[in-house]
């Protein structure tokens, strides 16, 4: 009990301490070498930009988060539905799986400019977010659906369960831990996909997301705002991860081994 408490304090205190040290060192270096703000702004300047440009930056944050969420949502639905189709019809799996892999291994940075030619910007960004995020959902869900306890399958067989019952009452619940793992990975990736597409679009068209702000601030040598936008993007990524981890914990805490504390 006591050991657990001090362990938990350490896990929070050590990273916080490191943060303070790094920020202090950053500030000291900027002052000591008199580095101009257009090369490396001090932490204070970055914070100032964050406060001063808050209306602009938060609007951009909402745009990026909105796109990320839409991409993530479509990737989750697409990945899970496609995995269910793979599981039910082998021919579908044989036909589509290679292309899912190809879509995954082709760098999204290289696809984004092409998508921007053929699709309206909003759709192109969405497509990028979807392309990078759907594969982990597909792969993990497929793995989960295929790794059901074979005795439970036999039991459902014994009681003449229909294919639909086997899928919904056995395979999907059994695959939940893997599905949630896939979603957790997809959350971070859909943010990356959205940012990549925004950056690619940044030089081409009008945008208003956070990544576009970074590109724009770069052209204007407004480096403090670049850092502020970057900070917001990181925080958004962390928030997505925490929300999805919490969801996973809520769903699995009653039954799954990964949630089992060493209590006995």
């Amino acid at each position, binding site marked *: 009990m006591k050991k657990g408490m001090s362990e938990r304090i350490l896990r929070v205190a050590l990273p916080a301490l490191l943060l303070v040290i790094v920020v202090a060192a950053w500030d000291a270096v900027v002052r000591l070498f008199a580095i101009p703000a257009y090369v490396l702004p001090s932490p204070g300047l970055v914070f100032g930009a964050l406060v001063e440009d808050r209306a602009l930056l938060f609007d951009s944050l909402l745009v990026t988060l909105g796109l990320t969420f839409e991409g993530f949502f479509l990737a989750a639905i697409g990945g899970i539905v496609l995995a269910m189709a793979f599981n039910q019809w082998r021919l579908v799996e044989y036909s589509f799986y290679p292309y899912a892999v190809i879509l995954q291994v082709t760098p999204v940075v290289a696809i984004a400019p092409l998508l921007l030619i053929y699709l309206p910007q909003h759709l192109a960004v969405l497509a990028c977010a979807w392309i990078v995020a759907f594969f982990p959902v597909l792969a993990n869900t497929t793995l989960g659906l295929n790794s059901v*306890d074979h*005795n*439970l399958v*036999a*039991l*459902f*067989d*014994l*009681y*003449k*369960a229909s294919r639909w*019952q086997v899928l919904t*009452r*056995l395979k999907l*619940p*059994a695959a*939940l831990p893997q599905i949630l793992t896939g979603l957790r990975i997809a959350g971070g990736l859909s943010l990356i996909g959205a940012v990549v597409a925004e950056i690619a679009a940044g030089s081409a068209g009008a945008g208003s997301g956070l990544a576009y702000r970074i590109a724009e601030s770069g052209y204007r040598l407004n480096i403090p705002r670049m850092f502020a936008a970057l900070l917001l993007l990181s925080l958004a990524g962390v928030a997505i991860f925490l929300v999805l981890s919490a969801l996973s914990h809520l769903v699995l805490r*009653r*039954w*799954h*081994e990964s949630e*089992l504390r060493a209590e006995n």
Partner: protein
Amino acid sequence: MEPATSNSIVSLRDVGKTFDSGVVALAGLSLDVHAGEFVSLLGPSGCGKSTALRIVAGLSAPTRGAIEWPQGRAAKSATGEIGFVFQEPTLMPWASVARNVELPLSLAGTGSGKARDAVATALAHVGLEDFAAAFPRELSGGMKMRVSIARALVTEPRLLLMDEPFAALDEITRFKLNNDLLSLWQALRRTVIFVTHSVFESVYLSQRIVVMTPRPGRVFAEISIPAPYPRDERFRTSADYAGYCRQVAETLAAAMEQGA
């Protein structure tokens, strides 16, 4: 071949099973199981006794021979006439004890009120009334196995198939579950086919023991254990019990020799 006697619930006629890999699991198993009987299939691992049980359950098709149901076919026509208990508890970890036990009924679309009563009755049979809301991981190994037995009983099957259900449990828990299973069997009068590799367990539980040869599996001998029920711990330490165990162990040794 003589027809199945009228009080047989299931008859295996020269049932064989060769897997796609070419492994012969069963080479001509003939067996009559009578209604209300407690019969054990005893043999070393790899003698095809689990395969035989899966064939009776309809989970696996024989590659030769036939299965007859003199009192009406149970396996294919109606669900719930056969209960199956696996080596592992085989519970759904995401569902509560009650939901696990209810599974056979909910798959068959039984109304929830009726199902609730049946679940309560089945849980009472195995002494787990107070654990309906618990999740499998909160239970001990023995309790999980009780849930598994309750699930097999919830449809009130005529035939209960048990595939080494207590093999993974410690001896104290196994003895307790042996006694509880016997009480249940006497109270409910179901037919039980019990697969085991334990001489002692088969003698303690069964009216009749079918000793099988290893690889490929066939019936080597049938031994009846005429000791009266109820059997309890006194039987376990009696001279009769020791005598039956010696007889069964010697038969098993002879079966192994023939198979080797």
